[in-house]
Structures are given as C-alpha cells and as structure tokens.
C-alpha cells in the first residue's frame, strides 16, 4: 500500500465542499489500506499579491519524506495546493483561482487593469499551466472545471465526479413547507436571491439556511433584506449543523435551493437528489446544470428573484411536481457512480501514476 498526501487549502474558520472532499478522500484511501493524510496551509485571497507568496509556499515544500515514511504520491486539489512539487503528482482539480479566469471582469474578481494586476494574472496563468502539466494524472471534479482547464489553459483533464460524502445515509421523509439552502454564505453562492424571492412566494413557505458567512458584510446585507421585507418569521439561519441534522433537513425539505454563479460542482445538488428532493437552480449556475434537468429533477430559473419565486410557487402549488422531481433525482443518483461505489473509480484513477512504476508499496525507502 502507498503513502499518500492529499493537499488541501484551508481558509480558517470556514468549511466548504473542498474540505469535505479532502477529508472524504483521505478516509476512503485509508479504508483501502493506504497510509493517507491531509496537508493544509492557511489561505487568504487578500491582498491579491499574496497569491504569489502562497503559491511559492506550496512550491517550496519538501514533501518527499516525513520521518521514516517516503511519500509515494501527492494529490493536489484547490489552488494553490497543486503548486507542490513531487515526482508523483495527481491533480483532482476542485478549482483554480477563478478571479483570473471565468470570474475575470465580473464583480467576483478584484483583478483590475493596473499593469501590476495584469502582471499578476499573466504570471499565475503561466505558472498554473506549468505546474498542472507536471502532474502525471490530471482530473477535475466536474465537466465545468475540466472545460475551464481546456479553454483557458489548453490542458486536457478527465472528469472525475466526487461521490457523495454521506454515502447511503441520505433518506427521504414527508416534505414540510420549507426550502433548504446549503452552502457558504458569500456573494457568489447567491443565497440573497432566495431571500429576496420570499416576499413573492406563498406566505406558508419558509427558508432554512445552513452555512456560515465567510465574507465581511454578508450577514448584515441578508439581515437588512429580511428586515426590509419583514421576513423574520420566515428565514432561519442554522449555521453549521451535524451530519445527522443535515440529513434530516434535506429529508424533510420541500425542495432545495442551490443557484450559485457558475459553480464548480455542487455537492448540494446531488445531496438533494439523494434525499429525493428536487433542486431549484439558475441557468448560469455552471456545475449544477450538469445534473439538473428542467422539469425532470429540478427547475432551472433565470438568476433573478422573480424567476426563482415563480419556481418555488410552482412547487408549492403542485405537490405532485415536487414529488416527481425528487423521485427522478433519486433515480439519477442510484444509477450513477456517485454513492459509495464511485470511490473505487476515483481512487483507481488518482493513484494511476503509481501503477506506471509498478509501485504501490512504500513505507521505507
């Protein structure tokens, strides 16, 4: 069996899909007899010049050996963890620094036309191409991520969907009158669209929000909107919840709202399906659209509160539609490789650089 390091990026005081993915991967590697662990370095996107420093930190790490253990393989995930240098490197790309790519020129990017910012962009793009191409195996967590690599960096990669973190534990219960929103509370996840839709939605529908804010001012903004529209009784912020609580919240929801801007993958979509719940998403939500089909297992709205409100109302008014969407979502999950079976494929592919040398055992050199 091999000694493997999963390289993760940690924004202190937050936890999102990337952290879940790294932890799940380590757990599954260990379950298959490998020695696996996570290496995480604190990460910040501000000031933007720090991005070069942080990439350089990863580059300067010596990951060849720890104590008596020789590291056989490293697996990079999110920017800038894949800058790490190692003779055997796989990449399971969660995302690059999107402000340089698909978010460039939008309100989610802070890169301006100052020649220093343009230099920063060009340096990082070039460096991305160099360090990603070093890997013996390159994959992305969704077609959206893989297409970005192809279009912006001319790098080919395989789509390797992450299986669901809670495996077979998802379940379904009779729906109650609330929409569930799960995810980090930040601008790009667009929970505000759902909050602002509520005044246009039937009064008996509530909104439950799981997640914590990781951008300054976000909670103040949400609370202003709630005060403005007198939604105190209808919106509930649940913060972080345990796995059991999350499973139960999914199980009892009428539907799940998940409409971020150009999402990389979106565990939430698939967790909703696994819980037999339809998903309300937007036509610019990226990775979620790889799975959500309008009127089949979800509703695809325009990214406006009016359109999202109309989608919610259509489910509130037609319970059979909500049930149908959920049932189709569950069927999709069961026929996919996204429950526990999928980990065999993921691990086989990520460990493929080891097979090239016939090496799968590496404790002592």
């Amino acid at each position, binding site marked *: 069996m091999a000694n493997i390091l999963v390289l993760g990026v940690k924004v202190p005081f937050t936890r999102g899909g990337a952290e879940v993915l790294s932890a799940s991967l380590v757990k599954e590697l260990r379950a298959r007899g490998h020695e696996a662990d996570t290496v995480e370095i604190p990460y910040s996107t501000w000031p933007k*010049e*720090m991005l*070069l420093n942080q990439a350089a930190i990863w580059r300067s790490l010596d990951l060849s050996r720890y104590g008596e253990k020789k590291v056989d393989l490293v697996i990079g995930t999110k920017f800038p963890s894949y800058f790490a240098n190692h003779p055997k490197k796989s990449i399971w790309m969660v995302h690059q620094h999107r402000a340089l790519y698909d978010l*460039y020129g939008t309100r989610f990017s802070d*890169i301006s036309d100052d*020649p220093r910012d343009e230099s920063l962009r060009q340096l990082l793009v070039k460096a991305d191409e160099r360090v990603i191409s070093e890997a013996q195996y390159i994959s992305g967590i969704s077609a959206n991520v893989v297409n970005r690599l192809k279009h912006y960096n001319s790098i080919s990669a395989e789509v390797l969907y992450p299986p669901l973190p809670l495996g077979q534990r998802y379940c379904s219960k009779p729906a109650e009158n609330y929409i569930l929103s799960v995810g980090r509370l930040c601008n790009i996840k667009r929970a505000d669209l759902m909050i602002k839709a509520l005044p246009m939605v039937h009064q008996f529908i509530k909104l439950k929000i799981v997640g914590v804010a990781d951008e300054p001012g976000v909670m103040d903004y949400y609370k202003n909107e709630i005060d403005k529209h007198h939604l105190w009784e209808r919106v509930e912020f649940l913060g972080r919840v345990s796995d059991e609580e999350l499973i139960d919240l999914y199980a009892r929801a009428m539907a799940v709202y998940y409409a971020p801007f150009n999402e990389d993958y979106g565990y939430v979509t698939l967790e909703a399906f696994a819980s037999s719940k339809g998903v309300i998403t937007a036509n610019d939500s990226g990775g979620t659209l790889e799975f959500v089909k309008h009127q089949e297992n979800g509703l695809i709205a325009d990214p406006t509160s009016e359109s999202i409100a109309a989608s919610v109302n259509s489910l509130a008014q037609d319970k059979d539609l909500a049930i149908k969407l959920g049932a189709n979502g569950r069927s999709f999950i069961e026929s996919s490789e996204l429950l526990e079976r999928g980990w065999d494929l993921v691990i086989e592919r990520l460990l493929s650089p080891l097979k090239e040398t016939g090496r799968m055992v590496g404790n002592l050199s």
Partner: protein
Amino acid sequence: MRPVRIAWFSTLPGDSDRSSVCADLTAQILPLLSNEFEIELFHDSFESYSAFKTSHYLNAYQRHQSQPFDLCFYQLEDSKDSAFVRSHLGLMPGVVWFHDFLFKNNTPEPIHNSPWRAILSKIRSNHPEWPARKGDFWEPGPYALREGALATLALFSSRRNLYEYQQRVSGKLSKLAPIFLPYATYLADPKKSRSTSSIDQDQLKLGFLGGPDLEYRAYVLLSAISAAQSITQTKIELTWLLERDELSRAEALVGEFNLKNVRFEIGRSLKRWNELLTEMDLAFHLLFSAYGDPKHYLAQSLNAGVPSVVTDFSEAEYLSADIVLKVSAGLNESAELQAIINRAATLKGRKELLELSERSKQYACELYDPNLVAKELSWVLKSNLSKLKQSAQSWTALLPSAKQALLEEVKSLRVAGICQAGELRKEKLNFPDPLAQVIDNLFASNLNSQAQ
C-alpha cells in the same frame, strides 16, 4: 511586405441573442478588410467565427507573445456583451470604434477600480515609481472617459458622441484626433427603386423597431397612428420589429390604442430590418434619450430609400431636413407625427416622399457603403500605424517594470506558513531567502517574455 496584423475585439455574430451593432458591422466589413490585413478575432466566448482564427479575449496576450500583433482594434457599444471590450482595452490599448459614448450599463465592475488616470500620469511624467495602491477608483458619471483616454485612436459612428469626446476627454494616451467613421449597411438593390407607379393609395405601410419603453416613443407613435386612421380611408399598417421579451408589453401598448393593423416581427437585427424595409412606405426612428441613437438601423432605412421620421435630438440634429422628416419631442409630438402620416396617405404626400427617398438614398450611398467604410478604415489604420504602435507600447511597455514592482511587493509581505516565520526583512539578506528564491524561480524567470 507582410500584412498588418490586427487583434480584433468585438461582440461577434452568434455571441448574443440580442441585436448588436458591433456584431453586424463585423459581419459587414471584416470580409472586406481581410484582403488587406491579417485579422484574429477575440471575444468573450470559446466559439469560433467563420474562417477567422478566433480566441477567448483572455488569451490575447498569449497570442500576442507567440505572434505579435501590430495593433489592437476594439468595437464598443453600450451593452453587457461589450463589457469584455471595456475590460481588455485597459490591458492592451488600441484603436476604439465607439458606437456609444454614454453608458447605461455599469459593467464590468472591475473597471471602476481602474487606476487609469494614475498610470497615464506616470507615463506622461516618466516617473519611475508606481502609484500607491488605492482601494477605490470609482469613476462617477456615464461617459466612457477611461475608454476615451486609453484609445490610441478614437473612431465614432456618431457625430454627437465625437463632439462629447472632444469636450470631455483629456490626458489621453494618444495625441491623434478623433475621426468620424460611419456605419456600414446592406447596399440597396439598384434595380429596385420607388416610383409613382408603385404607390398604393389604399394602404400605407409603416415600420418601427424601437422597444416599448418610454424613450423609444412607441406610445406617441401609436397614438398618432390611431388619430391618423380615424380621419383617412387609407388603411394604415404598422410592422413592429422587436425582441421576444418585449412582445407582451408591446401587445399591451397596442391594445391601449385599439389598433388592429399591427404586425409584430420577432428578432431585431439589421438583416431582418433590411428585409422588412422593402415593404415599407415610412420608417420611424424616434429614440429620444441621452443614451443611444437610432444607430445603423436609421442608416439602413436611408440606404434602402425608405423615408424616415426622426426625433430632432442628439445624433438626428446632425441630419439635414432634406433627407429625413423631423419631429420635436414634447407636447406636439403626436400631432406632428399624425400630420406626417396623414400627408403620406395622400397622393401628393406620397410623391413628396419619393423625392425624399431619392435624396436620402444618395446621401446614404455616399456615407454607408460598406466598401467605402472598409476603405476608409483601412486608410486610417495604415496611415497612422507607427503612431498607433507607439501609443500602445507606452502602456504595454510598463508590464516588465510592473512585474518587477509586483515581485518586490510580494517579497516584502508578511508570510504565514510552514517555511517562513515572522516578517520578511526588506533589506538585503546575507544568506539566500528561500521563499524569495522560490518566487524568483517560479515567476521571474521569463521576465523578458512579457508582451510588448
């Protein structure tokens, strides 16, 4: 001698489901220019266009590094689809063909944090230091002052916008004077001309392609048509060309005036407008707004010899009353329109319109012929090439020193992580700083390969 290489940044046909003057003009004149220039296209998409080499705009600098361009050419209009043009002309300044100069669209947001004035000031003063990083460069007002200042040569399809540019833009990258470059339209079929024998006195066909919003004056026109119809036997028909998402509001508006002979055509485009013009007796271009103008649609109407009615405001003020019929926005607007419609319903009125038609066609042929527009653009670019290159280089030549300044900035930042503890000292160290070395190896090695 090799042809001049141009990086052409524009919304392209197929990029958007909305009408785009940039896309229409690209389709018209690009094939004519491609005989003289080597043109590569850049837009905010990964699709290719026609037989041209087409790339995403963020890859332009890489294309420039592998095969340098002689100049960048941008087309700019007030739409979200043009947001990438506004962004990119701050990275690689070039010639800008403005089709709008006042922008309702506030996108993209990052340009509001552009330190363009500070950078232009640095270029003018030849100051070695870089300006301090400020948090906020928000530019008030709708004028494209940044874009105007960064244009190495400003071209305008509107005389009114050219005037605004001359009044408002200072501290520019380039000293070249702005130039009026009119739209290119589809050429009228010389075999088809209007004559008295083609007049059908039993019906009068009107055309309109504004939106249902107030500034397009649809409600004024419908009111005039309703009033005109009530006092003439001639059947007045209106063809309204619009976008699908405008249809329900347009239908509601028509319903308010109880008009029966209104036909809606979906899909506003120059091509479709040109097809519909063959059936029209009068075209209405009534936009009354500080933002925008009738654009190439009016030019197309004139070229097709369709008598056109305009609101005497903004760009229309530059048109002679010999070639268009003008109305004044305000209390008498509907009455003036009604008078024009009722006059056009008479035989004498129709004969007058035929004369107007001939004059407007002559005017349009001299101005909007795509071959002439392409020739003029070609002459403008070739005759100013060395100055254009010099202006653009004064900006892009900053990149190597910007890179050096950035790396110095980076190395002086506090680093938290496994390899380094505490603050990096700014003074020269006696032993190699491991992280600084890594930064140099990773990022500084290709210092000389920055785009020029």
